[in-house]
């Protein structure tokens, strides 16, 4: 078991190198990469700045941009062969140096660090809500399998299945965010503008007020799959022999379900905890975009829009690491909770 996890942990290294190498290579060889983009922007800027200038100085301009290109190549490490550039970049990453953002003019790691608490606030609440709703619902559906309650709640589950969580978020925002319908909740953001002047109680109220819609969207994102997983898992266990034995020896139904079957059926749910790890910490690009939450996900998105490549790569690095660690936690939980599992 221990060797499995050590090996698993070591697998993170080649996987991480694989991911970053893939993206690095793509960014390097795809036409219209950062250098070409910067040159284009520079030329546009010059063209706009020199609307009065005649065509006589085009030669000079060409020279300048050639020097500029060299300069830019140096900045992005394009003057070296790409594997050397990659090695240099990787070495820096290992020393926790993700470079400096162009748009913020600050170290990337600092910017990313600031975003975690924001994303976490929404992700964590959404996660808590989804677990507190989906698990009891799934259990209830399994116990009452085939009843009207089960069938009617299945309709809701189907809706959840067939529409992505962020789309539901958008619907909620337009319904309750003061568009053409009700004006109950803010249009996104984290806190109100006058947050600093509020009293402590009002501050909490204000935060919660901003939290409700995004957290609901997060919840709905995993609602359907979680509920069905819970239901099927419990149903499967209820068909097992040990449940039959428990009934046979005369235990009341409640004890059989909640003490015997439910414990075993929570295993697949618990292993999902590892996968939500990155969602909790890093949030979702889409929900953060819809609700204008300036967290980790939106940082990644806006860095792409602004073509701030150090931030983009930084978000990629941290995002993939979180995902890899999350997967490992999942496996670990699986082993811890289910002694029948033997990984090697």
């Amino acid at each position: 078991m221990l060797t499995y996890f050590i090996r698993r942990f070591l697998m993170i290294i080649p996987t991480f190198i694989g991911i970053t190498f893939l993206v690095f290579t793509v960014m390097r060889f795809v036409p219209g990469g950062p250098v070409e983009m910067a040159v284009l922007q520079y030329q546009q800027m010059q063209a706009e700045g020199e609307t009065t200038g005649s065509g006589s100085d085009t030669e000079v301009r060409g020279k300048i941009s050639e020097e500029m290109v060299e300069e830019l190549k140096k900045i992005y490490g394009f003057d070296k062969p790409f594997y050397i550039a990659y090695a240099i970049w990787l070495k820096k990453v290992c020393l926790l140096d993700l470079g400096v953002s162009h748009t913020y003019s600050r170290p990337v790691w600092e910017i990313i660090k600031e975003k975690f608490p924001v994303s976490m606030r929404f992700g964590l609440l959404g996660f808590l809500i989804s677990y507190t709703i989906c698990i009891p619902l799934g259990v209830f559906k399994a116990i009452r399998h085939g009843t009207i309650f089960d069938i009617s709640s299945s309709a809701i589950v189907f809706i959840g299945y067939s529409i992505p969580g962020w789309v539901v978020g958008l619907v909620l925002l337009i319904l309750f965010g003061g568009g053409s319908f009700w004006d109950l909740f803010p249009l996104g953001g984290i806190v109100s503008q006058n947050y600093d002047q509020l009293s402590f109680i009002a501050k909490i109220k204000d935060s919660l007020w901003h939290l409700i819609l995004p957290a609901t969207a997060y919840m709905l994102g995993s609602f359907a799959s979680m509920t069905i997983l819970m239901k099927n898992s419990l149903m499967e266990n209820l068909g097992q022999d040990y449940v039959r034995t428990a009934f046979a020896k005369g235990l009341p139904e409640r004890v059989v379900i909640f003490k015997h079957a439910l414990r075993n059926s929570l295993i697949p749910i618990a292993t999902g905890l590892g996968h939500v790890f990155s969602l909790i910490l890093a949030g979702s690009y889409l929900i953060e975009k819809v609700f204008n939450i300036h967290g980790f996900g939106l940082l990644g998105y806006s860095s792409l829009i602004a073509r701030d490549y150090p931030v983009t790569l930084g978000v990629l690095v941290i995002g993939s690491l979180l995902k890899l660690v999350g997967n490992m936690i999942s496996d670990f939980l699986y082993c811890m909770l289910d002694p029948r599992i033997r990984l090697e």
Partner: protein
Amino acid sequence: MEKLRSGFFSPVFLKRLRKFRSLKRGYYSFILIVCLYIGSFFAEFFVNGNALYIVFEGKRYFTLYNDASLKKVIFSRETELRQKATEILKLKVKAEGQEREKLESEHAAVKKEHDKARELKKAFGKHRNLQKYFDQEKAGNRAVLVFYHYGPNENLLDELGDRNPPTSPDRKNWFGTDDRGRDVFARMVYGFRISMSFALILTAFTYTIGITVGSILGYFGGKIDFFGVRLIEIWSAVPFLYTVMIVSSIIEPNFILLIGILTFLGWMGMSYYIRAEFLREKSKDYVLAAIAVGVSDPVIMLRHIFPNALTPVISFLPFSIVGGISSLVTLDFLGFGLPVPTPSWGELLSQASANIHSWWLMAAPVASLFLTLLLITFIGEAIREAFDPKVFSRLR
């Protein structure tokens, strides 16, 4: 039974297909979505800004897809008349007396004709205007419009009067117009065709690669399998959406390129299942018999094992299509999807989030997306039930 066995598909597979047909909800969803999708290829006949055909001076022009021939007639006539008018004018300057008067009246006649031709040319810009023009003219010319006469990429700014887009739904524009004054209903219809095609082609590509890789890993095993699985593990750990966003922010993809990117990053899913199926099947007697007879590896893989390994392919198909549609909507919403004038649900959703007072911009794509995905999910559930029957027995 003998007849069944001779086919490519195993009798078990055919039995499952029959079971699927008996599950009404999934089966009718399947028929409905297939009809809708096939119908969407004839969308031009129902939802289009172009007229079905135009009868102009006794001649019939089929203008649904292409009105170039009629355009040439109308435009060249206008040019001709204009040139003629200027020529007469030139002559008139030189001429004197009666000659001059004659030319003057001639010029007036030509000018009148030219004005008419110019008006026609102006009306020709949109077939709806052309129809109105023909109706007023009452000269036997006709433009026959299709059922819903707005196209997906047509700008309706001049027809909205003093209203600013996005305008709310009315009798002319059923689902209103978007922020560039384009008809939302038309964009929904064409968006359906594009979303479905995108998802189907994407699934075809990812499955082809996934199945090929998976079957090779499963069949040959050994070192190939070991390194292949490690490679797939690494590949699957790539943050899918973000990497697609990075790549497409750099190259601004078109339809084919976007499918290429998504295939490149998302082919792994099926290979796992196929690998498992091949691992299981290859030790069975019929495979060993085929090997003993000396059948070549590719033939064993394709003709013998593959038909028995179809279960995951079929049962994941609907969910892959749902995934494909969702990916396209997501990427379009974020602005990293198909190039701009393409009718797209995701692009409308992003407009909706920018114009929260225009509820129809949200309602139309959400409803379309929801209905489409719901139908496919129904199919998926039915297929799953037919192919992977899980009977829960329970003590009561």
